[in-house]
């Protein structure tokens, strides 16, 4: 008998379920229903059942956007892993004092307004931005480059935005590995590379998987980054959904794209998540 013997325990959970039911489950279900409705003449809805919205997803017109979203999300994840790992490792092997300091340094960008951090790259990359002025001044360039509103700008913005999401779980996993395991491997004549491959990486796997999930999911559904750094030139799924809802006002089709996005998130996220449970134990 613990708190479970409070007289009406379900009353504790009920308000939460009510809030999430009304403002989360019902809107999602509604969107699912709408994805099978037709678009009215003037942009409204017509309650005529159709699967046309899902058929339209196969239109080659949109394949570049899906391809770009997947490609950018995957490369962002991989690059975050590659540049995040050394820092996470150094953090985990520093003195406790240094660890706290580095942890705070990684957490500050994590908690800094995402819009502001994206804006910083707009400021650097635009035609009259710092990079172009600098290059022109030094004489590397004769004319400013179009750096903003490119796939490259979106890619940098995504890596910059989600790198802390990779470093933190990596650090947590690496910190748990006892340095004596690495020393033991060294004593047995393993080189730095093979210690890394056969000791550090296998033991850090739960952190690697967690970091990859935490970077991949927001990257594939990114909205702010492609909107501000990609513009109309480099659309991703998130900006396409916004475009269909607010600009074209084709809600049924916008809903269908949303469920495609959810499918992509679940297809990649769920196996990784299940795998993490296996490795984690």
């Amino acid at each position, binding site marked *: 008998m613990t*708190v479970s013997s*409070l007289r009406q325990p379900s009353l504790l959970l009920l308000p939460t379920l009510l809030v999430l039911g009304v403002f989360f489950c019902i809107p*999602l279900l*509604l*969107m699912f229903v709408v994805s099978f409705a037709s678009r009215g003449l003037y942009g409204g809805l017509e309650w005529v059942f159709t699967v046309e919205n899902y058929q339209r997803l196969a239109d080659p017109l949109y394949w570049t956007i899906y391809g770009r979203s997947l490609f950018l999300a995957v490369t962002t994840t991989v690059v975050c892993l590659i*540049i995040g790992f050394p820092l996470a490792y150094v953090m985990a092997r520093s003195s406790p004092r240094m660890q706290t300091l580095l942890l705070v340094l990684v957490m500050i960008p994590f908690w800094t*307004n995402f819009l*502001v951090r994206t804006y910083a790259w707009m400021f650097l990359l635009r035609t009259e931005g710092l990079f172009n002025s600098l290059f022109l001044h030094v004489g590397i360039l004769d004319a400013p480059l179009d750096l903003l509103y490119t796939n490259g700008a979106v890619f940098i913005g995504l890596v910059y935005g989600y790198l802390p999401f990779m470093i933190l779980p990596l650090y947590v996993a690496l910190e748990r590995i006892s340095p004596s395991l690495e020393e033991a491997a060294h004593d047995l004549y393993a080189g730095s590379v093979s210690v890394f491959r056969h000791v550090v990486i296998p033991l850090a796997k739960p952190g690697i998987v967690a970091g990859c999930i935490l970077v991949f999911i927001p990257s594939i559904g990114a909205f702010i980054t492609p909107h501000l750094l990609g513009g109309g030139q480099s659309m991703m799924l998130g900006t396409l959904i916004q475009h269909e809802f607010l600009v074209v006002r084709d809600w049924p089709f916008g809903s269908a794209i949303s469920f495609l996005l*959810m499918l992509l*998130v679940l297809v990649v996220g769920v196996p990784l998540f299940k795998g993490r449970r296996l490795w984690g134990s």
Partner: protein
Amino acid sequence: MNRSFRWLTGMSVGTLVFLYGPILVILIFSFNASKISATWEGGTLHWYGQLAGDHSLWLATSNSLLVGTVSTLVALVLGLGAAVFLERGRVLGQPLIEGILLLPLVIPEVMLGVALLLFFVMLDWPLGLTTVTAGHCVFNLPLVIMVLRARLRKIDPVWELAARDLGASPWQAFVHVTFPLLRPAMLGAGLMAFTLSLDDFVVTFFTTGPGATTLPLKVFSMMRTGITPEINALSAILVTVSMLLIGISLAFQRK
């Protein structure tokens, strides 16, 4: 080993420069006297003064604080009950409930935003601060529940049992034993939820209506009209506030 560690340290320094460089540039240029902003023309506090005189900015700030406070309080109060029940009680349909609590944290924010927009418009629910707050509760509530449950799992039920053996009612056991142990987690979860709400752009963007501009929406509309030194100054303020909030939460964790 030492040599490769030095290599890794060098790369780490590079990563930190990458993380902080752009933010520092914005901080520095927020004091730049030049209106065209890419070249340095001496220091000034002019842009900060300009911001202080912007009435709509103050309004947006107070809207943000209001939405943040209400959605955080709702998440804390409802989340506390849910977390205690899920960890200590017997739950029917646990997998379904776990799913409902996980999904808002996993699905892309755009999707949550457009689903809410669809829902509110179809119900003829006027878009404004109420709808924005409801949207923020959807991501804050599962977050708070997750943090509180993690903490509750570490609190041995033995303490509550001891209180009960000594004649405390379940309610007394909760108020005098469990809750004080949970207080640091409540504070941490509250700060996280509040920061998340203050920073949120995507869900707010889709659920907002006339007259319900929050701070991120204001920043966004300023960015769209062109890059000005005022945005640099505002960004610098927001970065400083984030740092302060982290400082506060760390100070509380130490205690």
